[in-house]
């Protein structure tokens, strides 16, 4: 790889500088801020999945103690323009107009139809109980298939419930199926779930009428995107809007979207000319944080007797709630399923059909690994099914069909261009790591004793480092470019301002490592600042596994120029040729002898305070900004493979997760520990979706499990040991060579778990295909209930 000249830190598990601060309770989350004249907003949310507001009487609520304002949708609409969440490159996508506070009609249980602002949150909640609302319930469309059939159309302005459809086919799909020796077919169901962040959604908006400025403290992944949105929808010049995201307690994609209640909060700040805070409590989080992954997919695969995969044929139906989510749309998840299914394999024929439909449930949108967990799970499940029917070992069947490592650059059947992947190396490494053949032998022995273990493998490809092709080309004002400003301080410290944000995942730590190497300083001399549109360069923020690859490259390039500029100053001070000098370990050295010539502290002192001692025609430039945009490929595809070992208790249907492996290739590994923990955390979220997490709705659209007692997030006691390893194939599209690692764990885990469970159930001729795999579903498959 093209590492920086002195790679002291890149590649090492340097402890994160912010971990100590967070562990000592000195983080600053939005709710920690203390602001004068602050008031609190709560929302009156629809108890119905679909209902018309006949009468909304806020008078009694308005008269309650501490209440500043009680506002309906019509009133607030004067301060906040509505939006329509469509993108130009998703052809034909449609969505109704959405207001910050719904007007006339609520379309899901939890949609806000009024707001109460009061001196305290408790007072606001007291007043909430005094709102009188007369509802006329409307038919709720909660089933995706019913929605697609369109008997009941949710939005009167449309003639059907279809938000977005896409069809894609190569030329020889029917011929491939016709000549196949074996065609396997299965239908898969994925339950809705959500990303449960430790810190809920939070926003504190402060409007200063004298300056017409809006400052928004927000727990967000994308401050600049939000700056643009607040500016355009509240009609405040962009330069007058500042979005600050200090510490963020987890986001996972949940905090990269525009939420109506957050827009309403900002609009209320403008209307009331004072700071207003909204903190989503856990009940609201479950009702209104975006959900994801409600899909029903029919998948067919054609292969030969010899074990060659010829074609996939996919029909995906997904229900997204009543609105496409602004500004990224709710068409992306299904689109990813279409783009990625079958991805690791070398078949040439592919057909996919996607229908994204409106329903009267909470909105769905992009959550960690967007579409990947679904595409990987269905691909890998049907690959296992075919292997079983062909009598081939699942690992061997995969080996025959993986795109070979020497086939790159490669374009997959659905047209995804990939620079360089390492499926074969990853597979080989995985099988050694897990001692595959020994496990298989053990499995057979244990079955004789009534112990049913299963081994599941899931290969995957993953979209990371997205180029403008992801959102920008569709007209979304979302930056795929990021920037880094590095400044040498007079003391020789380096301040590093980056537009990518920290969500608790350690982004700032890797930027410090890259900056230290690029400039030539020790890592403790680097201070990283992120999450403030008033300070950092412009950029996209954190999503789609882009922080390290895009933000990191910007830091590297900025650091290299700063190093050169430092040497310019050193050359002048030392009256030496700058080619003979370099920066190492906080000092300017003579490259021939390695001798220290000048400390950066001294260099900084002279450059900033005694420039009078430098030549008249010399001006130092010790602050540098560089940007980076991924180009050439739409995405820096990564790959990896996971395996799961589980044991099914065939009497109870309980699954014990015994061990999990992941070998993945995110290119240059900047901080191995942080990457491994990203993978582990991702695997846990993948396991959550596969095993326990499910937003359960009744037939009339009522969420049944809106608390952490009833919605089952995965917990440490049930998690398996995880063994993580890497193959390193740096991308040549950047000098750093880093690709994304944040979503790989989540992408592959559900598929590996599904295959492991079905492998354990093999002796009983039983299969499960509906996630999450509850004991009841497993007992059902076993015919025990």
């Amino acid at each position, binding site marked *: 790889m093209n590492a920086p000249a002195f790679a002291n830190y890149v590649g090492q598990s340097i402890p994160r500088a912010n971990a100590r601060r967070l562990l000592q309770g000195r983080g600053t989350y939005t709710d920690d801020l203390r602001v004068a004249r602050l008031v609190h907003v709560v929302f009156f949310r629809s108890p119905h999945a679909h209902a018309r507001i006949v009468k909304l009487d806020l008078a009694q609520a308005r008269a309650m103690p501490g209440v500043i304002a009680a506002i309906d949708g019509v009133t607030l609409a004067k301060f906040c323009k509505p939006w329509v969440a469509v993108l130009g490159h998703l052809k034909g996508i449609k969505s109704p107009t959405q207001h910050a506070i719904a007007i006339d009609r609520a379309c899901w249980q939890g949609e806000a139809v009024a707001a109460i602002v009061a001196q305290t949150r408790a007072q606001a909640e*007291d007043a909430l109980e005094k709102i009188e609302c007369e509802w006329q319930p409307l038919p709720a469309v909660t089933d995706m298939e019913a929605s697609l059939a369109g008997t009941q159309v949710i939005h009167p302005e449309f003639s059907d419930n279809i938000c977005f459809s896409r069809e894609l086919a190569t030329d020889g799909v029917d011929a491939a199926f016709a000549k196949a020796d074996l065609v396997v077919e299965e239908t898969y169901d994925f339950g809705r779930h959500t990303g449960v962040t430790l810190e809920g959604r939070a926003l504190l908006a402060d409007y200063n009428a004298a300056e017409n400025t809006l400052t928004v403290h927000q727990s967000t992944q994308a401050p600049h995107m939000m700056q643009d949105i607040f500016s355009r929808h509240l009609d405040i010049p962009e330069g007058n809007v500042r979005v600050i995201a200090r510490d963020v307690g987890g986001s996972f994609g949940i905090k990269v979207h525009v939420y109506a209640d957050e827009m309403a909060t900002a609009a209320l700040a403008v209307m009331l000319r004072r700071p207003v805070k909204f903190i989503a409590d856990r009940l609201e989080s479950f009702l209104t944080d975006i959900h994801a992954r409600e899909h029903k997919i029919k998948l067919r695969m054609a292969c030969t007797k010899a074990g060659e995969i010829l074609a996939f044929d996919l029909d995906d139906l997904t229900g997204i709630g009543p609105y496409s989510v602004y500004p990224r749309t709710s068409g992306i998840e299904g689109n990813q399923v279409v783009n990625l299914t079958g991805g690791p394999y070398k078949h040439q024929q592919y057909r996919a059909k996607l229908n994204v439909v409106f329903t009267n449930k909470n909105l769905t949108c992009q959550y960690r690994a967007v579409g990947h967990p679904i595409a990987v799970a269905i691909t890998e499940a049907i690959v296992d099914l075919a292997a079983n029917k062909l009598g081939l070992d699942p690992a061997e069947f995969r080996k025959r069909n993986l795109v070979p490592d020497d086939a790159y650059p490669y374009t997959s059947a659905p047209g995804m261009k990939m620079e360089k992947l390492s499926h074969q190396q990853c597979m080989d490494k995985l099988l050694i790591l897990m001692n595959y053949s020994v496990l298989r032998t053990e499995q057979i022995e244990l079955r004789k004793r009534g112990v049913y273990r299963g081994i599941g493998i899931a290969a995957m490809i993953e979209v990371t480092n997205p180029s403008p092709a992801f959102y920008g080309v569709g007209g979304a004002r979302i930056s795929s470019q990021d920037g880094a400003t590095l400044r040498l301080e007079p003391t020789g410290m380096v301040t590093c301002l980056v537009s990518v944000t920290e969500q608790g995942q350690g982004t700032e730590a890797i930027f410090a490592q890259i900056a230290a190497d690029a400039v030539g300083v020790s890592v403790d001399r680097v201070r990283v600042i992120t999450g403030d549109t008033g300070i950092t360069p412009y950029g996209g923020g954190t999503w789609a596994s882009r922080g390290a690859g895009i933000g990191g490259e910007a830091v590297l390039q900025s650091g290299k120029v700063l190093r050169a500029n430092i040497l310019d100053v050193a050359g002048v001070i030392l009256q030496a040729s700058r080619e003979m000098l370099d920066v190492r370990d906080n000092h300017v050295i003579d490259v021939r002898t390695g001798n220290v010539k000048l400390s950066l502290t001294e260099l900084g002192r002279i450059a900033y305070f005694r420039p009078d001692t430098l030549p008249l025609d010399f001006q130092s430039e010790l602050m540098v900004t560089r940007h980076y945009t991924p180009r050439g490929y739409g995405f820096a595809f990564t790959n990896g493979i996971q395996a799961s070992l589980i044991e099914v208790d065939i009497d109870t249907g309980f699954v014990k997760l015994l061990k999990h492996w992941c070998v993945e290739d995110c290119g240059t590994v900047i901080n191995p520990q942080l990457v491994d923990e990203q993978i582990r955390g991702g695997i846990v979220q993948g396991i959550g979706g596969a095993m326990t997490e499910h937003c359960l709705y009744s037939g009339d659209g009522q969420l049944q499990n809106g608390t952490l*007692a009833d919605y089952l997030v995965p917990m440490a006691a*049930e998690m398996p040991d995880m063994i993580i390893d890497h193959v390193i194939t740096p991308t040549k599209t950047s000098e750093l060579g880093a690709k994304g690692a944040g979503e790989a764990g989540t992408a592959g885990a559900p598929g590996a778990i599904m295959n492991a469970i079905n492998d354990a159930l093999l002796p009983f001729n039983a299969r499960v295909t509906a996630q999450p795999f*509850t*004991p009841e579903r497993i007992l059902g498959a076993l015919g025990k*209930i």
Partner: protein
Amino acid sequence: MKAPPFAYARARNLAEVFELLERHGDNAKILAGGQSLMPALNMRLSSPELLIDISRLQEHAGVQVKDGHVHIGALTTHAAIGESADLRKHLPLLADAVEHIAHPAIRNCGTFGGSLAMADPAAEWPACCVVLDAQIMLASKSGTRRVAAQDFFQGLYATALQPNEVITEVVIPIPGAGYRHAFLELARRRGDYAIVGVAAMAKISGTSISDLRLVYLGASEKPVPALETSQLFVLKGFSESALKEAQQTLAGELDPAADLYSSVATKLHLAQVLTARVMKQLAA
């Protein structure tokens, strides 16, 4: 998620508690460990006028052994029960069950008496109390009465506790020699309320079983002693055929309600599986 307004009184002694209960009746709620009450308040599922905080009445916390009985103070925390050497020695069933109760932070605050007063059908302590033939001591201004655990639990979150009463302690006879116990439950995550569980005790002598008590949690509106099922094992011993018959009988004795993730059929099936396992454990 903020509690509606309420008044708060920290009781210094039981007399104050009785006084407040007499005055406020149903409009007052007793606050002990707060592990169920506080979430209910914050979610506005409950809106009492007054909270009577009894958590400082520490004379009603702790475990004592007297005259062949164990006395457990109502304010004894779950954690303290788990740590009690006396309980481990005399009533190991409780020590085994405590590991299934929520998580350490909750066990440090939640109380034995609070759990009984709450009477969640899936909770561990009510079932244990029924199995162990516990007597629940209820005190009010007019005096103290004792109610057998089996009579105390009357239905879903319903008990014999009157609005003017508090639980002060629980008295449990120490089982004689030859008794064995077992506690099993199935929860999808460690610490969750059980889908279904069973607390069991029996006198085992060689291959004969007597005084078998099987009490199920999460299998009805209250802890259910499966009397016929128990009797069947006592008569026929532990054999595969007895088990099959007992599992049939059990289905008639339990009346579980479906929960979010498990149907009635699943719960019954799991109760039958646990029955086989618990009997195996008792016989082992």
